[in-house]
Every structure is written in C-alpha cells, then in structure tokens.
C-alpha cells in the first residue's frame, strides 16, 4: 500500500479512524434532523452561492427570474452559513494537526500524469463543473443525497449511491488504469 504511505505529512496520530468519524457524522445528522431541521448537504447552498457569479452577465433581474434559483434566492441563511462552518472546521482541524499546506495536485495524479499544473488545473476545473452539474441534476451530493438520503432509506439516494460508485470505478479504471502490478 505504497500510496497510503506516500501521503504528505497530512496523516498521523491525530486522525480519527473512519469508523469514529463516520459515527460522528451520523450523530451530527441527529442534530441536523432534530434541531436544525435541515439535513447535512452542500450543493443546494453552493449553487445558490454560485448565483452571485451569474450577476455580471445575467443581471439581478435575470438571476431573480431564473426558474431554478427563484424559489431559493441567495441569503446568509442556515444552509449557506453551514458551508462557512464546514470550511472553518476543516481549516481548524488541519491547523491543529499541523497539516495545512499548499497542495497543487495529489500524489496519484502526479504519478500518472506528471507535474503539469495546467493539465491538473484544467481537469480539476472541468471535473468540478460536471460534478456540480451532476449533483444538481440528481438532486444532491455525497452529503445531501448519499449520506442524508441514504440514512432515510430513500430510493433516489440509494440509486444515486450505487450509480456514483459504478461510474467512479469505471471512470477511475479509464483514468488511472487497473493494473494490479502498479500497486507497488
């Protein structure tokens, strides 16, 4: 498992086992359902934030009239503030671990495609765009659909969960190859 060990100093004894962190997210869901009355989720709020960047070419009237954004205009409400909290929490955790660092690309990317920043940034940009488009089309992301919907045993969310894994495995095989030999 060379890849695991090749992580930059970003790991260590301050990390939690995935089971503990997962259980923590489960307990956080109880709070989200019972107190906040808003399940954990990212992309609905993020797409509302994105409407800010449509203002220069659509104008205030254009954004306000858009049938997708109309029912949920951007404001500093629960789900948007949640995203600010998410980034603060991750930042603080990394700060205390001592793992804050500028990362230009991940190790397995560099091993496969080399160190070109242009290539990595172009693909990250394009990947982010279709990730978001897909999330909006499906109605949620890994948090809002897979975890929050999965734990409610929603049909849509379990279909989402299975299809993202199928698509991810196939995409990954094309992108990074499947050779067992490159394990080392």
């Amino acid at each position, binding site marked *: 498992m060379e890849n695991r060990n090749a992580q930059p100093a970003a790991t260590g004894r301050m990390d939690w086992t995935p089971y503990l962190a997962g259980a923590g997210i489960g307990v956080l869901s109880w709070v989200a359902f019972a107190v906040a*009355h808003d399940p954990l989720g990212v992309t609905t709020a993020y797409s509302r934030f994105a409407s800010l960047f449509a203002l220069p070419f659509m104008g205030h009237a254009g954004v306000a009239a858009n*049938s997708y954004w109309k029912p949920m205009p951007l404001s500093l409400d629960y789900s948007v503030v*949640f995203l600010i909290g998410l*980034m603060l929490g991750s930042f603080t955790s*990394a700060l205390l671990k001592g793992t804050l660092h500028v*990362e230009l690309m991940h190790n397995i990317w560099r091993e496969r495609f080399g160190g070109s920043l242009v290539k990595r940034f172009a693909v990250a940009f394009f990947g982010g765009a279709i990730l978001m488009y897909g999330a909006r089309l499906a109605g949620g992301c890994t948090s809002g659909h897979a975890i929050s919907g999965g734990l409610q045993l929603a049909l849509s969310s379990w279909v989402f969960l299975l299809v993202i894994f199928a698509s991810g495995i196939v995409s990954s095989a094309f992108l990074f190859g499947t050779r067992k030999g490159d394990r080392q």
Partner: protein
Amino acid sequence: MNLTGASLLILALAVGFAFGWLLNRARVTSADVVCNQFRFRDFTVIKVMLTAIVVGGIGVLFLVHSGYSHYYIKPANLLGVGIGAALFGLGMVLYGYCPGTGLAALATGSLHALIGAVGMIFGAIAYALSFDWVNEHVLNVWSLGKVRLPDLTGIPDAVFFVLLAIGAVAAFYYIERKDRARS
C-alpha cells in the same frame, strides 16, 4: 426544538464546523484517499459513509417516530438521478473530491480543490441556465416521487438497518483483515 434568527445561524456554524472537522480527521479531504476508494486501495470513504448511514439512520428513525423530526426525501426521478449520479462519479474521479470534501480541502490549502470549486460554480450556473429544459425533458421521466425503500418493498425500516449493520460489520471485518495481512 425550533431555533430562529441568530441562534439558528450559530447552530449552522457549529454543525458545519463539526462536519468539516470530521471530514478532515477522517482524511477524506485528501484527493488520494478519495481516488483510491474507486481503485479499491483505500476503503476510508466507504467506511465513513456506511458508518454514518447506519448510526445516523437508526437515530433519525427514532427521532421521526417519536415526533422530533420528519423525513426529507429527495424525489426518485430516476432518469435525472441516474444521469446526474453518473456525471457525479466521473466528476469525482477527475476532480479528486466530492463537493463537500472539495470545499473542506480548499480550506486546508489545496489549490486544485479551489480551482475545482470555481468549476463547480460554472456547473451550477450551467444547471440553472438549462433548468427549464431539464425540468421538462428529464426530471419527469421515471418519476416515482418521494419514495422510501420500506414503502416500496414492504420490508420494515428495522429490518433494513439490521441487514445494513450486519453487512457493514462483515464488510469492515473482511477489509481490515485483508489490510492487516497486506501490511
């Protein structure tokens, strides 16, 4: 409990903070960890998700049945969910993150996570601009409404969670044993 105004926003900050903290401590803010899940070399992502689903689901089941909350089910318009999820899986491999872990990672200094987050803004705008067409041609196909698996199958919630928990523990046991044998 119903919070409003400033106390609701403080709660949002706190819940978000805890979520971001947990994602970082679980190491899923690393694109290597996320990508290696799809290559079956690191099972962190699935461990986090399955544990969250089982622990969260059992609690939420009690909360709903005791009247403290209700379900928030996303509609099963299966063509949209299917195509969206397929794009999402591809996007996750190209980007190296999902939306939540991408935002969490850019906060720890990942520059390519930031670039992808800008891409996400474009994706969201593209969706808003195409929404009328999508709404008319995709979202109404194979649309089964806000269905839950227990309603669909007649199998009670408790049975699902017992099976999920047993399945998860068995899978985790197998993965851990294999990992130990390898290292």
